[in-house]
């Protein structure tokens, strides 16, 4: 036998080896020498190069505002009244205000400081949701935001308009405002360059450390320069930075495992961005807006509220320095530690290899069959294509139906039934002949590979997670009637199909890795992410992963063997 046929025979092994390589490639990223230290790419940013003056008596003013905002909470003041009062405070120092009314998502108060040196074409946003992701009243954040803007209004240096936004929550309410800003608002202040969200949901003067959130929707990330500026300034002011929601006692850890943990948490957070609790930065994703959220954690500590306030101050000054848009630094990266990252070139090959794995399995299903020499252009291919189209259409209908009627139990039940079909069907179906089964498999894997390839550049974390989770699909064997080990194969197939079913897999992984997404929460999260935030993870899962899985399931149904002799004629 020649080298090529030998190689072709070993395709499944090759593919499994490739999968292993892909995982190893991710695993070696946190090793010393594989990652890079962050740096500021755009020289104009100059973070922390100017002395920050948000201190001393500004603290009194923040406390003054806070005492009044606490009253809102104590007296349970309604949104409308609260907005009216804050509006009058903002107008006192010359801010143009307006309220965006939205019956579905709540009113949003916003104000624009038209800056004297600016040309009114660009803006920086300071966004303060009244209630944070944990539904706590953002009392410190609101006081800080108003105090900061009042302080900013005294400076003549601003070259971009400053916008302050008080939305009801950091999720749908803020997102609807951002959308309205780009469609229907009458009071606007130019294109938004960057947005800083402040989350300080305590009335304490002190805090412990700062969590920075940066994930955008649909695989988007803010420019690494903005994240670096935020991290650098926060650390410069003497605060500890936690990324991806790491707890305080693990912030200082260095070494391979902590870096790997941050990396994997980053992949998790990015995959589930918009599906889990949002912090505000997600709402700005798109429209070329770079956004981060600064969350003050802990009420005890030696960091005071003005120190925390100097972080947005210095970020604003940095962004204000920009003459161009954010474009110098990376838009695709993974963080390993606040000051360590890898760029797309280090991790993308892993996702590419995963998509090759599926292409390899597709090739395997084409050449390594018992039906003889592979011919691509035949009736089976055409039928498979028709079946694939039907599967795609079904998946789309299912995706749409679920968005309108999100009943996860029903969805899972339907999928459980589909999983059982190959197990329960003992007799071969007459239409499903063996060559067709194999051809369906070819198309299933090919589609998966194509879907992953097109997704991996846009949304690496999702492509990677999908690729890894649907791997058990490749272990599903196509069986023909009369095989000896039918029972074992059927059970193995059923387990693999269950594990690689998009809905079961997402359910399992969300419950294992994310405490926020317990039980069936992930499904509601997926639907609300689409409805509230235009995050298309649900449709990617339904339209890319589910049809492929359906085809593989179909190929696992017992098929009628075809006499090879007959085929040859």
């Amino acid at each position, binding site marked *: 036998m020649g080298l090529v046929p030998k190689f072709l025979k070993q395709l499944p092994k090759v593919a499994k080896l490739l999968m292993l390589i892909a995982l190893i490639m991710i695993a070696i990223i946190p090793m010393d020498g594989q990652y890079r230290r962050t740096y500021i790419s755009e020289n104009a940013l100059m973070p922390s190069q100017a002395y920050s*003056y948000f201190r001393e008596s500004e603290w009194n003013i923040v406390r*003054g*505002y806070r005492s009044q905002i606490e009253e809102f909470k104590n007296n349970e003041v309604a949104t409308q009244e609260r907005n009216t009062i804050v509006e009058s405070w903002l107008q006192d120092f010359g801010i143009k205000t307006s309220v965006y009314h939205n019956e579905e998502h709540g009113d949003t108060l916003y104000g624009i400081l038209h800056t004297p040196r*600016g*040309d009114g074409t660009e803006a920086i946003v300071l966004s303060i949701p009244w209630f944070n992701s944990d539904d706590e009243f953002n009392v410190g954040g609101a006081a800080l935001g108003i105090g900061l803007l009042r302080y900013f209004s005294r400076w003549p240096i601003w070259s971009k308009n400053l916008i302050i936004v008080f939305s009801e929550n950091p999720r749908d309410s803020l997102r609807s405002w951002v959308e309205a800003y780009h469609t229907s608002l009458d009071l606007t202040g130019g*294109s938004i360059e960057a947005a800083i969200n402040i989350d300080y949901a305590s009335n304490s003067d002190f805090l412990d450390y700062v969590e920075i959130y940066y994930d955008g929707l649909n695989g988007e990330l803010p420019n690494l320069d903005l994240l670096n500026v935020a991290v650098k300034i926060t650390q410069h002011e003497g605060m500890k930075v936690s990324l991806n929601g790491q707890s305080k006692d693990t912030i200082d850890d260095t070494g391979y495992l902590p870096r790997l943990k941050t990396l994997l948490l980053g992949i998790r957070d990015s995959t589930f961005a918009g599906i889990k609790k949002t912090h505000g930065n997600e709402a700005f994703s798109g429209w070329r807006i770079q956004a981060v959220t600064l969350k003050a954690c802990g009420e005890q500590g030696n960091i005071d509220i003005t120190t925390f306030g100097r972080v947005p101050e210095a970020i604003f000054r940095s962004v204000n320095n920009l003459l161009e848009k954010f474009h110098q630094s990376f838009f695709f990266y993974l963080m390993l530690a606040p000051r360590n990252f890898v760029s797309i070139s280090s991790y993308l090959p892993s996702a590419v290899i995963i998509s090759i794995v599926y292409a390899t399995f597709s090739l395997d299903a084409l050449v390594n069959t018992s039906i003889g020499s592979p011919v691509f252009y035949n009736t089976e291919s055409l039928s498979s294509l028709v079946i694939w189209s039907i599967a795609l259409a079904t998946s789309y209908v299912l995706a749409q139906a679920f968005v309108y009627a999100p009943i996860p139990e029903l969805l899972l039940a339907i999928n459980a039934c589909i999983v059982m079909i190959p197990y329960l069907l003992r007799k071969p179906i007459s239409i499903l002949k063996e060559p067709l089964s194999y051809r369906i498999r070819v198309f299933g894997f090919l589609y998966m590979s194509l879907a992953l390839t097109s997704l991996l550049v846009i949304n690496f974390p999702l492509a990677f997670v999908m690729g890894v989770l649907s791997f058990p699909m490749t272990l599903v064997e196509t069986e023909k009637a009369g095989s000896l080990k039918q029972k074992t194969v059927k059970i193995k197939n059923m387990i693999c199909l269950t594990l690689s079913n998009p809905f079961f897999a997402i359910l399992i992984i969300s419950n294992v890795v994310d405490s926020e997404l317990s039980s069936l929460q992930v499904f509601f999260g997926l639907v609300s992410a689409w409805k509230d935030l235009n995050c298309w993870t649900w449709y990617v899962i339904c339209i890319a992963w589910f049809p492929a899985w359906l085809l593989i399931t179909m190929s696992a149904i017992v098929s009628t063997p075809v006499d090879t002799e007959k085929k040859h004629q």
Partner: protein
Amino acid sequence: MRHSPITIALLLLCKLAFVVTSTEDPEESKIKTSDNHDNELFRVMEGGIEYPYEEVLNVRPLPHNHLLSSFQFQMNSEPFYPGQSLHGFETYDHYTVFPKSLEPLLRRTDVRKLHLRFTRGYWDSEEWGRLPHQGFKSGGSGVELWAVVEGSSKQEAYNKWKSLANGLSGSFCASINFIDNAKTNYPVFSFQPVETNFDGIPLFNETNELYLMHASLANEPICTENLTPLLTLLPSKGKSGISSLLDGHKLFDSIWHNMAIDIQTSCIDNDRYANNGECYFEMESNVDVVAHVPSILSRNKHPIPKPLGGEDLHCDLSKPYDAYQCFPSPETTEIQFSLSDIFGKNISGANDLSFTHSKICASVSDNWLATIKVDDGLFGTDDNCFELTENRNYDIYMESGSTDKVIPVDDVPIYASRSLTGYGQDHGGLRTVFTNPTHKPVRLSYYESLPWFMRVYLSTLDMEVTHGNKEGFTLNDIVESQYYIPSIDRKRSSQLEFIMTIPANSTIALSYEFDKALLHFTEYPPDANHGFEIESLIITILEPIPYQLRTATLLVYLSTPDFSMPYNVIIISSTIMGLIFGTLYNLITKKMVPMEEAEKILATRSIKYKLTMLKQRVVSKFGF
């Protein structure tokens, strides 16, 4: 105004001395003045020669402690005779107060009317009411230029216009020379001179026609480099009179500032085609500036706005306050300042050139006190207007205990704002919101020029009533006439003009969509990643009152390649190509051999060896 008798006497002495020295040929000037009884170009007064030049400064407090200072300078040129050739040996030009740098340019390019604007900042019309001079003296953010040029054809007029732009570019240190075909528009509804159909604008050649051209450079930075040339155009050169207040540091540190030059040609003879009539240029220059007084005063005190000391905090006493917390009280309503605080300089003396004395007026309500400070004395007048008559240091001192009361601002007939809409890099939309707060419908003209790379879909033009009577209004009811010139790639911008009526008490949003074109890579500006500036939308109100306003400029972002990326790719691929080519070329053309073999080969190539071989062959052939 009161003066001490001694100063008046001194002043008279000075001026008499000036008369003796400067009027060398009084007869000639007398003849001239008697000739031009309609329009005195200069006349000899007891104080000396005085020229057709006037300057006025109007200071007006606006709500929320803002102060509008409007400088106005007016001057006329010496007469000229359109029929006369410019280049004759016998002719000579005589210049007095009219800038020598402008007049030859104006005459060479046959400009009948010229308007140049340098504007920057945010005019808060909700607080401050109408723009100064009803908006007709201010431009959009950046530089704006429009002119009426006489020419035999459109192309000739354009050539003159281009020449004018180049000339002004040099005079004002601004990028006006970037005005080209793609930036020049010929307005149809807007900017039409007050003299309808150009009647009243002199035409020097009967066969010629007048062409109105407009161009603007959005967000062209305005700085001291533009102010200094403007000051040198004034006869006082910024050294005396009210122009001595103008200082770049303070002027450009304001909330809104505007510099304008308006020149028009006037002819004595009423006949429009007065080829041999006597004509002259009238020039008006305005500088308007709005400053926020408390912030300027505090910046004079502490250049860096550091946190205030505990004793300087103004707390709201109705809310809890102590040594740790302070709810800030609204802005103070007590204020005292002098113009030297705002402009950083005193007025250094009167100007001695004009017909009338330099004048400063304070438009204030009764709760304000405005006085003039001459050296160390303070003087007041009934009408709050002061004339500068002496060569001494002047300053205006103003104070009020209730700055929330000012002369009521004029109601604005319309508010307009424009914003970019849409998501993504390939298309977008423009949305303009008109708010008519008055009880009368407002008829206006809408003028918008968009660069060619914004491909407008006029079919998507849509109207939405966001506030007010929503019933019964369609786009056709609002827009009564449209004028649209589509763009030509790289050659012409698209021009959109409407005449529309905004119903009373309503807010209307007009929106349309556009595609963003792809540019050639050389067409990107050096700072490609900043975006492309889109000039302001210009709204001229026709009824009920004439008024003009402009929206803010916009920044459109086109899909921009990362220019460093192709550079890297070119470098890397060139290196690889070089390496591969070198290696391949060597492999193809050269042969690798060991040293011994190479020596053998070399040995066979020598002439001596060849001779030996030849000899051997000859010997073997003849069989010796």
